[in-house]
């Protein structure tokens, strides 16, 4: 019985390792098939590889592919640092304090449905196309999900946790810091996760509309020059980096809230 059960789990393990590889293989095969039939739509594998190595031997705007990736990531990190600190603060305040909610809640509701990309023209008109306006756009895109999730998390803390705090004599600040905020941490973290994927999307859009460096700039450059291989190399990079970011965040969540798995 016991050995049978373990055997089954090892088979299952193998299956769950094979399945993602299989799906990846299928995509590659589908790509190769379409490429063979319609070569003008997709660059072939050799072309992709050559374009990839060329980004190192012949850097675009004096920066190789890694440099462009780092330029995008740098904008994301700076914007996220502000979005997380200000977003959590703002979310806690409107989730916890009724006066604050009444004052700023409706303004926030007005800004909330505006897609971050819609800010791009306004921000470019105001601030030009330097580093600051790009970071600002990414900040807007990542600030909003942090606020929404934090506020929800704070508002939905079960009454009984607050009762426990009150019975044991907690004052308002202690209720917030010892009971409410930690209870809301999983929700806050959900906001952080959304903010990262949103920031990564928005930074590329911002770069596509005018930047020397950054993965988004590479996409636009490839597009303008009819360099399909460059566009594909950039897009594959975008996908891989996004997946790595999501993976890192998953690990980070387990470190930050070990009770929540």
């Amino acid at each position: 019985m016991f050995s049978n059960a373990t055997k089954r789990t090892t088979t299952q393990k193998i299956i769950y390792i094979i399945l993602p590889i299989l799906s990846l293989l299928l995509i590659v095969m589908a790509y190769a098939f379409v490429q063979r039939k319609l070569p003008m739509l997709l660059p072939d594998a050799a072309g992709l590889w050559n374009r990839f190595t060329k980004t190192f031997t012949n850097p675009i705007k004096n920066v190789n592919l890694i440099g462009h990736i780092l330029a995008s990531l740098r904008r994301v990190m700076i914007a996220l640092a502000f979005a997380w600190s200000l977003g959590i603060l703002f979310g806690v305040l409107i989730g916890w304090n009724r006066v604050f909610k009444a004052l700023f809640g409706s303004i926030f509701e007005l800004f909330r449905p505006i897609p971050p990309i819609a800010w791009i023209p306004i921000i470019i008109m105001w601030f030009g196309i330097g580093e600051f306006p790009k970071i600002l756009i990414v900040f807007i895109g990542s600030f909003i999900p942090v606020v929404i999730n934090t506020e929800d998390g704070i508002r939905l803390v079960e009454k009984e946790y607050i009762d426990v705090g009150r019975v044991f004599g907690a004052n308002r600040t202690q209720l917030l810091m010892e009971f409410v905020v930690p209870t809301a941490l999983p929700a806050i973290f959900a906001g952080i996760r959304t903010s990262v994927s949103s920031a990564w999307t928005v930074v590329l859009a911002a770069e596509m509309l005018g930047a020397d460096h950054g993965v988004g700039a590479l996409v636009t450059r490839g597009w303008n020059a009819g360099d399909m291989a460059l566009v594909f190399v950039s897009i594959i990079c975008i996908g891989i980096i996004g997946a790595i970011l999501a993976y890192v965040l998953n690990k980070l969540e387990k470190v930050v809230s070990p009770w929540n798995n």
Partner: protein
Amino acid sequence: MEQLNGLVVENLSKTFYSSEGYFTAVEDVSFTLNDGEFLVILGPGRSGKTVLLNMIVGIEEKTGGRILYNGKEKTGIHPDFGMVFQSLSLMPFKTVMENVELPLKLRGVSKKERRKTAQHYIELVGLNGFEKSYPHELSGGMKQRVGIARAYTANPKVLIMDEPFGQLDAQTRYAMQNEILRIWEAERRTVIFVTNNIEEACYLGDRIILLSDCPAKVKAVYPIDLPRPRNMVAQEFLRIRTTISDNTDLAI
């Protein structure tokens, strides 16, 4: 004559108002709590027991009557009152130690001192070795012990327990009943223990206040003079149990 020491509950009532009308959960409940007593409040199903307790502890507003503590009217939270909650309500993000020391942390007691007190109660409830565990790693009975240790750490004069064993299986429940008596005998606090289980009430209480079903009113008061440890199948025990049982409203 008014009693100056301890707790006196007079005509305590609670009516909830809503758009659909009003609903009385607790009506005219009066009793006096004796010092050092193990008082059991017994009531069927959802008879408003929790509402009554929450009013006594001060987290629910009363709509009628008054509560006197040491001769003064008690409104709101009072540091002499501690509570063990019905659902476990431990902080999932805190370890056993951090949960138990929490009441002292809120009062600004130094870390060294509160750790010492918390350790004492962790040992008293038999959880040594689990100080660093998180609640989700503990069994139901162990979680409830954490809740009890936490309430004791707050050093309350009156300890209120709201159906603390309601979610435990029968075996664990019997074990915890003996545990709670052992701790009570070691610490001698005044206890108000709420349950819907007649056997548990007879096993634990110095006195049982039987409530009626919705609204909760005092139906009868039974002093239990049996010596402890009580035998749940002794004739005298069964006689008292039957008397109370016959007088209890059936919960639907």
